[in-house]
């Protein structure tokens, strides 16, 4: 078995090395990545999409299908975790102690350290501002929906750790939870159909100059949906895995 694994690894490695040897030299101006669509993105991307950060332009406009399915993958991960029996089983809620000093979850009685409590509360607003800035300026500077989602999600996880899951759960309104979890795929589907109606192509973006504002609005909707939906999914993944079993 070990020999087989070694042979397999060597064969795969050799294949990769041969493949890499066939690539054009790094930075070669005649390489395929510089002569096909890449050149067009660089030359006309800003004019065509109105998005000044070309990474965002490629991510949301030119390669929208990729990103659509990425969002679906994150959503599917959450669905898979929630489908695990131990993730959704909850112990009966203990009455009368929920209003006491902040406690970590309900599985143990170790009170949260006042130092950690204070520092997380101190830093949380800054983290939130950073996430919003990265979202708001995502079409100009590095950043955007996915980055913002990861930062907001991490903030929600940190708050959940110090305030306890009951308090943290209130960050997400109960009735809207399912909708927020599916926000990314839903927004993409809606925008895709809007694009279909406007351009005749699924997930198409209107290309003419007059539709500039509309195009930008579509991109902003996608960015916000990715950020909020992704953050809720990350926090929910944490809550589900952290649930006492």
């Amino acid at each position, binding site marked *: 078995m070990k020999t087989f694994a070694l042979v397999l690894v060597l064969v795969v490695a050799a294949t990769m090395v041969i493949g890499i040897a066939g690539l054009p030299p790094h930075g070669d101006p005649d390489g395929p990545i510089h002569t096909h669509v890449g050149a067009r993105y660089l030359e006309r991307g800003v004019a065509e999409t109105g998005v000044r950060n070309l990474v965002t332009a490629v991510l949301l406009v030119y390669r929208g299908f990729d990103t659509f399915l990425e969002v679906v993958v994150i959503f599917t991960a959450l669905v898979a975790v929630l489908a695990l029996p*131990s993730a959704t089983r909850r112990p009966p809620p203990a009455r009368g102690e929920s209003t006491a000093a902040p406690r970590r979850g309900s599985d143990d009685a170790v009170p949260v350290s006042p130092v950690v409590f204070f520092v997380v509360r101190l830093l949380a607003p800054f983290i939130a501002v950073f996430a919003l800035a990265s979202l708001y300026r995502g079409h100009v500077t590095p*950043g955007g929906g*996915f*980055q913002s989602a*990861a930062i907001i*999600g991490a903030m929600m*996880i940190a708050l959940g750790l110090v305030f306890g899951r009951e308090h943290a759960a209130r960050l997400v309104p109960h009735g809207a939870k399912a909708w927020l979890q599916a926000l990314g795929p839903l927004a993409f589907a809606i925008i895709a159909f809007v694009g279909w109606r406007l351009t005749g192509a699924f997930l198409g973006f209107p290309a003419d100059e007059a539709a500039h504002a509309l195009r930008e609005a579509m991109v902003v909707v996608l960015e916000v949906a990715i950020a909020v939906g992704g953050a809720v999914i*990350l926090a929910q993944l*944490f809550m589900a895995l952290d649930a006492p*079993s």
Partner: protein
Amino acid sequence: MSAVFDAVMLLLLIATAVTVARARDLVAAVVTFGLYSLVLCLVWQHRGAPDVAITEAAVGAGVTSVLFLLTIAKTARSERR
């Protein structure tokens, strides 16, 4: 200088990747994997891809490690021999 930096980072990547694969203690593997993500984040930043670097740092080194640790807490800490 830049090539030296790249070479050191890539060697670190290989070293951490091998360490993750060889670790029997899964917590050690997760911690080393966080280190791997952090080094990869530096590589992205150095190659001029700050978008990817932010995501790598937040998701790879941050959230993924937490989720892995929670999973280990729910299952077993050591790989079955």
